[in-house]
């Protein structure tokens, strides 16, 4: 079977949950099918500046066809229209303008799809909100699979996505909560598809005992992994953690792994570790008491899956339906909505190490049962059968 993946950015250098998710799935499906990735030459999702060579190349054994972005994102034009469609009454025309300004506008990719769609047995589109997915999926919806990676934010409420979700032959949801959210907000019941998610590619193991002294993480610590920015809930997490630390005088460090776009004062208890190789990151997670995930908007937290893969419990933001649902299904950690719950949960995780270990083990079992690559690939095979068998609604 010849399968095309369509995604806004692609490559080993791309840091982004949906893009990494796409790359892993493409690489695993390439072991069974002829896979080609159709993407842009951009690497920066804020500007969509063309940075890579156009044309055919190969990434980890997968063929990648890159097309240039027609125009970079203009913040002066994008911000007002994004603000308008997200927070104010607005017209359909403004929503269409938002889609154009949001980008990445890539007419050559669209032209390629129109010209060659017959060459592909199925098309898999990643992230509903991007221009490449919104317009690309409309070329051959009857053979298209959508991986929405939708979060509970205001973009999902835009009217232009209501009919859009009825188009694909099948949808690969990241979690049951994401499915419920999309069906509720877009007013579409019983969308075709199933809950899939993703597996995690484990890098070569690095001994935990080696990593901890090198990173100077010797005592008890909690770990956060991801972009360090207020939109991810990091400001509130640091505020809650420091308040808990002041109240309990606990000798615990919050170690933040990732690139930071916010300013905060590092001290003995809050440390910025920066970006480290995947092996070191996983080793650091494996030795942490727990991983904290403060984001309110997630369709699937790959970092939470990584923590469970390493046998560690998680403490997640309970306002995020997806994270709360995952934790309750896995019995793999605790959640909080307010400071008091955050403090009580930390008291438990830090005060009862055996309980934390058991929660981590339960998370690990849940990960193996639901997110092992064999399971994920089986599910994609079922969705491909739906797309190639013409079982969709396109």
């Amino acid at each position, binding site marked *: 079977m010849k399968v095309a993946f369509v995604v806004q950015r692609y490559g080993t250098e791309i840091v982004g949950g949906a893009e990494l998710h796409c790359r892993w799935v493409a690489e695993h499906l390439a072991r069974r099918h002829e896979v080609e990735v159709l993407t842009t030459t951009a690497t920066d999702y804020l500007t969509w500046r063309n940075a890579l060579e156009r044309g055919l190349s190969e990434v980890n054994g997968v063929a990648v066809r890159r097309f240039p972005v027609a125009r970079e994102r203009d913040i002066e034009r994008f*911000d*007002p229209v994004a*603000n*308008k469609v997200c*927070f*104010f*009454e607005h017209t359909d025309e403004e929503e269409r303008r938002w889609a154009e300004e949001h980008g990445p506008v890539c007419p050559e990719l669209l032209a390629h799809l129109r010209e060659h769609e017959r060459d592909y047995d199925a098309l898999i589109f990643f992230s509903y909100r991007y221009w490449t997915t919104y317009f690309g999926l409309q070329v051959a919806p009857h053979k298209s699979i959508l991986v929405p990676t939708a979060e509970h934010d205001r973009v999902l409420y835009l009217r232009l996505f209501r009919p859009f979700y009825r188009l694909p032959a099948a949808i690969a949801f990241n979690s049951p909560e994401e499915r419920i959210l999309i069906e509720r907000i877009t007013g579409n019941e019983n969308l075709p598809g199933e809950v899939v998610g993703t597996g995690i590619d484990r890098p070569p193991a690095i001994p935990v005992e080696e990593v901890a002294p090198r990173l100077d993480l010797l005592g008890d610590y909690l770990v956060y992994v991801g972009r360090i920015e207020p939109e991810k809930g990091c400001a509130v997490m640091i505020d809650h953690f420091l308040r808990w630390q002041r109240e309990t005088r606990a000798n615990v460090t919050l170690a933040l792994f990732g690139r930071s776009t916010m300013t905060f004062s590092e001290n003995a208890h809050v440390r910025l570790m920066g970006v480290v190789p995947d092996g070191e990151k996983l080793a650091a997670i494996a030795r942490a008491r727990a991983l904290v995930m403060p984001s309110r908007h997630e369709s699937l937290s790959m970092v939470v899956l990584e923590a469970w893969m390493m046998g560690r419990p998680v403490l997640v933001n309970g306002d995020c339906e997806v994270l709360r649902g995952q*934790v*309750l299904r896995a*019995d*793999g*950690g*605790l*959640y909080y909505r*307010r*400071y*008091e*719950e955050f403090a*009580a*949960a930390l008291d*438990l995780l830090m005060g*009862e190490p*055996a*309980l934390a270990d*058991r*929660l981590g083990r*339960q998370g690990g079992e849940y990960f193996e049962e639901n997110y092992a690559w064999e399971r994920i690939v089986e599910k994609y095979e079922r969705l491909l059968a739906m797309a190639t068998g013409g079982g969709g609604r396109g």
Partner: protein
Amino acid sequence: MDEWTGSDGRVDVAAIMGRIREKIRGRRDRGLYTDEEVEELSALRLQAFADDAGIDPDLLARLMAPNHNWNISTDYRIETHRAGPAARLVVLLKKLVRPWIRLYTDQPLSRQAQINLYLHYLCHNLVRELVRLQIEHTAVRNKLDALAGEPGPPGGEASPGGEKGEKASG
């Protein structure tokens, strides 16, 4: 650890969260408030401030809502109170003039909208912190009053504060 284990031998997260919430309710019984209650008290306080200022109740409701519909926008609806051909002419003229006006107003209005939003969050969070501090202050004062009412250590008149004072001066 056993207290968390269910009959199936697994740790039940829903049960733990239930216990945590129970513990938080227990804190309220001791005169400490939950964050939700602080939120409710803050909303009441904000409403009281707005009432004092005589703000239009509709605007107040919008200010308290989770969306940002209260804020100014660069775009605006063109209307007139007139009727008939004069109205159509006025609307047409306004529509013709609008692009020129927006050329000069869009940027400052957009900046002002961001400032409004920031001040809105700042004020709401300050009131929330104020309410929280007042509650904590009251709880500490009540505790001090209760301690002051308790009998002193046997065989001595000096309070712990007095001893501390003596040591400091010595």
